[in-house]
Each structure stands twice: as structure tokens, then as C-alpha cells.
């Protein structure tokens, strides 16, 4: 198993201990046992600096933005816009105009589907998604293709949980107008060859949205280098608050797209005989945004940058390799998702023990994992399972925590064996 990251930045145990100390929740006891948090794919924990940033905003600078002449409003506006600039630098976008703040990945994708999709798709057109997408990168495209008469086509996965570029080449035709693909699959851990897919799609004249909800905290993301047209992610999956997310879009595309939601902030002039839209990025940010969330996300990205995403990826590769090796020792365990390029996620089923029971038994040991269909029911169908258990890692997890997971799983097997 290899990671997408070539660099091998060594991480020592002392560093991990220091990182863990930044996350107060990691000191929690669950059912009298130290918390072992392996549900980072669902949401990540927050470092003290993010918690402090959010609470400082509410304590000392809370105010609405872009509309006050008073001091607090000016401070809040600057902080909010600084967060946008931090995000822009973090993903390597060319301009702040390309960074739209949303409530999360789901809203970012819906924005593109509704604004770009409704405006551009028509009968005879095709939208491509992969079989491994999260429901939030399937359903908005189903809704918009149904409304416009376009067709939704699916790039299949093999039994390792990978797509093939051959299939992509074959499915891309002059009818293909849009491709929506996850960077890192939440159900399988697969890292998709998004750069290659983007190149192929562009050659066929199609635009590409990359769902980076999972990838953002685990692998370096440079939108300019990827040359993706849109990139979506959520703050809460990269150590930031819930309710804040990002849509990156190429400026020329965003300029041409109509607003999705109407309201305050997204207009320049409102008259009953017609209104004029505001400039980017505000055209897509109707209403009072999640100001605390945006500022908190900025703090989270600064925190990640200070540690270094390469370092994070290197440590997580060690964790995942070790976890997969150890999981293979559990009697009756089948891994779901064995792609060559993987990160951060180990999904599996265990013979005679349902994922839910695994979840409950591990919980009694203080170990948090996810059990279910992971909002990826087509993936479950592909592998013929109703649910999987999923351990998903972050850089603050340790090899000892993997050992705890394995002990808990052996206990479950014993109980039901």
C-alpha cells in the first residue's frame, strides 16, 4: 500500500504526543476508558486554538459583517475576509474571488448542481459520477439531471474499490458536460486519480467538480495544479467547526454562473424591475454567513499548515499500513476497499458479527468507529453488504490506539464466534 504522498517525513512518537495535547477532547474517558477516536471520517476533533478562536469571536468581536460602520463590524469583517485568504492560500487558489464560503461540502455541491447545472444542462447531455460517491455527490446530480433531461452515468469501481481510467475514457463522450468525483472515498479510502480524470474530462470538453470532503485533511490539495473546475470541502472534517465549508471555483466559471440563493449581501442594487448581483465571491453568499465558523476554519487551516500536511500524511500512512496489517489477523475479517492508493480509512466486515454489534462492543471499550452504509449505499451494494465497520484515522491517532481497536475486535469475535 502506498500513499499519494511521495515525501516520507518521519514522525516520532513525541510529536504525536504533543499534537494530542492540542485536542482537549482526547483526554475524555468514555465508559471509564480513555477515548480512542477512530471516527475522523465522520468528523474530526478540534484543537484548542480553534475552540479559542471561535469563543474569542463570540466574546469580543461578535458582529455582523460587510454592513456595519462600527468598530466591531469592521473587526469581524476583516477576520472573516482573512479567513477566506487563509483558505485561498491553503488550497492554492489564484484569488479570494474563487473561494465561496458555504455551510459545507453538501451545500457546495448543491450550489454547483443548481447554478451551473440548471443553467447549462439539457436533454442529451450527460453527467458522470463514480460508483463510490457519497450520497451528497450523487443526489444533487440526480435531481438536476431529472429536471433538465440530462442523463446521469456511473463510472464503475472494481472489487478493490478503484475506478479505471480506461472506463473513464470510454464514458467520456461529446455528450459529457460534467464529471463529479471524490478525491478520497469516505467508504473505501480510495484516493482517486483526479488529476488524470480532470485532464481526460477537459480534453472531452467537460467540467470537473472534485469532492474533497475526505481528502482535505489527509493529502495536499493544490487546486491550480489539479486544474479542477470546482473543489468542495467541509470545515468540520479538517479540525474546524461544523456548518462551514468551501466551494472553490475557477473565476471565469463563477462569473458566468447565476446566483443560487437570493438575499442580502449577494446583490449590489435591488429594484423591483430587476436587481444587480454583487461581485464574486459575494454573489454566492446570500444572507449572514457562519462568521464564527469561517474564522474557526481559518484557525484550523493555520494549525494544519504549522504541522505540515506532508507530515500528517506520512504519519497516517504508517497508521493505516499498520492497521490494515493488524486487521488481517482478525478471524473472518474482510477488508472493504483495498485500492493501491489509499489514505486514512479502513473499512471492513467481520463474518458472523454485524457492523452495528462491532460498533457497540468497541464503544464499550471507549473506541469510536462508524458502522453503517456511510452515505454510500451504491458502494455497499457493489460489495453485497448492508453495512461496514469503518475506522478512520487522523494525525493524532497512535499505533497503540490501533492495538486497542484490534483487542476490541478480537473480543467481539470471541463473543459472537
Amino acid at each position, binding site marked *: 500500500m502506498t500513499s499519494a504522498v511521495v515525501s516520507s517525513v518521519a514522525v516520532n512518537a513525541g510529536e504525536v504526543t504533543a499534537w494530542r495535547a492540542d485536542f482537549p477532547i482526547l483526554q475524555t474517558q468514555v465508559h471509564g476508558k480513555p477515548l480512542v477516536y477512530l471516527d475522523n471520517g465522520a468528523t474530526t476533533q478540534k484543537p484548542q486554538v480553534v475552540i479559542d478562536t471561535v469563543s474569542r469571536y463570540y466574546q469580543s468581536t461578535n458582529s455582523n459583517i460587510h454592513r456595519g460602520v462600527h468598530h466591531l463590524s469592521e473587526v469581524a469583517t476583516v477576520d472573516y475576509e482573512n479567513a477566506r485568504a487563509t483558505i485561498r492560500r491553503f488550497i492554492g487558489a489564484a484569488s479570494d474571488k474563487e473561494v465561496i464560503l458555504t455551510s459545507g461540502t453538501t451545500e457546495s455541491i448543491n450550489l454547483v448542481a443548481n447554478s451551473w447545472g440548471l443553467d447549462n444542462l439539457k436533454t442529451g447531455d450527460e453527467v458522470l459520477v463514480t460508483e463510490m460517491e457519497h450520497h451528497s455527490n450523487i443526489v444533487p446530480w440526480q435531481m438536476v439531471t431529472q429536471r433538465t433531461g440530462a442523463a446521469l452515468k456511473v463510472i464503475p469501481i472494481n472489487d478493490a474499490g478503484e475506478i479505471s481510467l480506461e472506463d473513464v475514457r470510454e464514458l467520456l463522450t461529446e455528450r459529457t458536460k460534467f464529471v463529479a468525483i471524490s478525491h478520497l472515498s469516505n467508504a473505501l479510502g480510495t484516493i482517486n486519480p483526479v488529476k488524470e480524470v480532470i485532464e481526460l474530462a477537459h480534453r472531452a470538453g467537460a467540467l470537473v467538480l472534485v469532492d474533497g470532503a475526505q481528502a482535505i485533511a489527509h493529502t495536499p490539495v493544490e487546486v491550480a495544479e489539479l486544474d479542477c473546475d470546482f473543489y468542495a470541502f467541509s470545515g468540520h472534517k479538517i479540525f474546524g467547526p461544523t456548518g462551514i465549508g468551501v466551494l472553490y471555483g475557477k473565476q471565469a466559471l463563477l462569473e458566468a454562473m447565476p446566483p443560487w440563493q437570493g438575499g442580502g449581501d449577494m446583490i449590489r442594487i435591488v429594484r423591483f424591475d430587476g436587481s444587480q448581483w454583487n461581485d464574486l465571491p459575494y454573489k454566492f453568499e446570500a444572507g449572514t454567513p457562519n462568521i464564527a465558523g469561517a474564522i474557526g476554519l481559518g484557525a484550523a487551516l493555520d494549525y494544519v499548515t504549522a504541522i505540515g500536511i506532508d507530515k500528517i500524511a506520512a504519519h497516517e500512512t504508517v497508521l493505516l499500513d499498520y492497521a490494515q496489517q493488524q486487521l488481517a489477523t482478525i478471524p473472518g475479517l474482510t477488508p472493504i476497499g483495498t485500492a493501491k492508493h489509499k489514505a486514512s480509512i479502513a473499512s471492513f466486515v467481520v463474518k458472523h458479527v454485524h457492523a*452495528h454489534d462491532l460498533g457497540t462492543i468497541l464503544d464499550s471499550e471507549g473506541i469510536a468507529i462508524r458502522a453503517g452504509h456511510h452515505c454510500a449505499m451504491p458502494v455497499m451494494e457493489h460489495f453485497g453488504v448492508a*453495512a461496514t465497520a469503518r475506522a478512520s484515522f487522523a494525525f493524532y491517532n497512535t499505533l497503540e490506539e490501533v492495538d486497542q481497536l484490534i483487542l476490541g475486535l478480537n473480543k467481539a469475535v470471541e463473543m459472537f464466534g
Partner: protein
Amino acid sequence: MDLRELYQDLIVDHNKRPRNFGKLDDTTYFAEGFNPLCGDQITVYLYVDDEQVTKVQFEGEGCAISTASASMMTEILTGKTIAEADALFGLFHRVLIGEKELDDETTDQLGKLAVLTGVRAYPSRVKCATLAWHTCQGALHKKQDAISTE
């Protein structure tokens, strides 16, 4: 937190060897149930003769709690009238959602089912224990839509 309270031997046993498992071809009522949260899915088949349940079978896939609950249900409901089945489900459901206290009399009335009351300590698992029962209710009372625990 004692897992054995939840996974009592009888539950583990019914999960390992579910009773009355499989499709019933000669059936008066059947319904499919679904727990959208976890993807668990079950079909309950009943043969009812003059208001009396004479045969119950089930098939599907679920966790230990939902499988054991379904398996035990097939045994317990056999021979009961529809009214008795309704009353037992009502009591079981009220106990699981904490509307009814588990006193000696209630424990008596629940019989074997009492082993499933450990789920009260695990709110997210209550639906697992009631899926088969909801589905059975749907079959008996001919609810048209797919039965869902949501």
C-alpha cells in the same frame, strides 16, 4: 457498562441460530421492513387462520439484536391472536422507549422478550430490537408503504 446485559446468551444464541428463518410460501400476510439508518432489512411472513397466528417466519440481514428479536418474535407470536400480538408489541415498545417501567409484572408479561430490554441503555439500538415487530405490525395491519423505523 456491561456488554453482557445487552448481549445475553439467549440473544447470542438466537443470532447464531435464528429460528423460523426463511421464506414462507404459503402466507396470508407479509411485509418488508427497513432501517434506513443502518441498512438492515427484514421480511416477515405470517400465516393467520381465523385471527390466530399459526406460523411466522422471517428472512433478511441485521445485527445480533435485530436478528435475535425477529427470531424470538417468530416463536412468541405463534399461537397468539392478532389482538394478543398487538398488545405484546405495544408493551414491548413502551418498555424499550422508556414509557413503561420494567417492574416484575411487566417482566412476567414480556416473558423471554425481557432479555432484549438491555437495549434501553443503548438508545441508538432500540430500533434494531423493534424492526421485526414494526414490520410484523405492518404485515398484520396491511400498511401499504415499505415499513421503516424512521
